[in-house]
């Protein structure tokens, strides 16, 4: 019997191997190969599993789970919710992105303190972020769904407009805005491709691949983390977690991606 089980095994190591680069084009091709290899399996699934368990666990001063949390499609509906966020929520009278909304639920249902929740939202090698696990679970439930961020409510329109203004806002020691790097096609910084977030195609491709597992950090990263690290590199001061500005910018980017199929959670170098 054993003899009949023919085995071919391929062990995929996610470590970046030293690459022999003779010229720019072959380097780009090698990076493309590396990306394909990453597509074989995504450790983000581990974080999704943790988040799914966390969602159903009774926690906080009120000892309740998040199973009654309304992410926009009704209490407890997770499937497809992320593909329609950020959106206006009548109960908070605000436009909220996923992370803001999760905090709203954790405050309302579980009795957590919002300021406390905002203190350490991003994981490190020695600190596991509950928020990022929850994000992994929720976004995973929108994989394969069309992006359909609502834009009808006046506050959704206002968020989109504010987000656009922030996208083009130049400041800091280097005069950078988001647009400095993300408003031209086929550009790259060093070897890193820069999506054109002002075009539907570029914006759709980029937005639908976040949140993502970062191989170089061995961590799952939320969209608020993505914006936070962009602003760091932009030489800006730090955006407050889930602040109106970051939600507005997310509204702008998410709305620009409308119509595309959500592909996340992604996997990045």
């Amino acid at each position, binding site marked *: 019997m054993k003899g009949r089980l023919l085995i071919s095994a391929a062990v995929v*190591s*996610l470590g970046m191997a030293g690459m022999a680069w003779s010229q720019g084009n072959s380097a780009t091709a090698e990076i493309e190969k590396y990306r394909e290899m990453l597509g074989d*399996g995504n450790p983000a699934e581990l974080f999704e599993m943790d988040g799914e368990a966390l969602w159903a666990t009774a926690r906080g001063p009120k000892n309740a789970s998040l199973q009654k949390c309304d992410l926009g499609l009704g209490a407890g509906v997770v499937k497809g919710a992320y593909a329609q966020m950020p959106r206006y929520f009548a109960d908070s009278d605000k436009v909220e992105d996923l992370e803001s909304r999760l905090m709203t639920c954790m405050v309302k249902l579980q009795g957590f303190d919002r300021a406390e929740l905002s203190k350490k939202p991003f994981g490190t*090698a020695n600190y596991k972020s509950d928020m990022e696990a929850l994000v992994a679970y929720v976004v995973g439930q929108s994989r394969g769904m069309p992006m359909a961020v609502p834009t009808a409510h006046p506050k959704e329109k206002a968020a989109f407009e504010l987000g656009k203004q922030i996208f083009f806002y130049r400041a800091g020691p280097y005069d950078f805005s988001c647009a400095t790097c993300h408003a031209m096609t086929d550009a790259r910084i060093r070897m890193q491709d820069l999506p054109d977030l002002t075009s539907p195609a570029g914006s759709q491709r980029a937005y639908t691949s976040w949140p993502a597992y970062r*191989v170089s950090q061995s961590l799952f990263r939320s969209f608020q983390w993505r914006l936070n690290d962009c602003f760091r590199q932009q030489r800006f001061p730090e955006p407050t977690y889930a602040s109106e500005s970051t939600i507005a910018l997310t509204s702008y980017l998410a709305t620009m991606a409308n119509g595309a199929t959500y592909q996340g959670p992604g996997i990045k170098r």
Partner: protein
Amino acid sequence: MASSMRVRALLKGDVTAITAIVSHPMETGMRKDGGKVIPAHFIQVLTVDVDGKRVVTSHLNTAVSSNPVFNFKVKGAKVGDKAVVSWVDNLGEKGSGEAVVAAG
């Protein structure tokens, strides 16, 4: 760090693709944290059993990334078989996960 492991087994034609995503730091023992060496901590042996039979034994070292992804292709399995992936690391810690072979 996530705390778990995910296993998938999909039968297409006569080949079953088994994917295992393992939560593990895979520390090489070469990295430092604030001047202090982080001790080596990595999976040494990873095995796959299908329907109670050992079909893969792999010996790993530190050249594998943290939270590694493994893909194996196995012939001879059938829908409903149990695929079990297990590992042991250099500190003697163990983990395992399983999946029922499904039509892919």
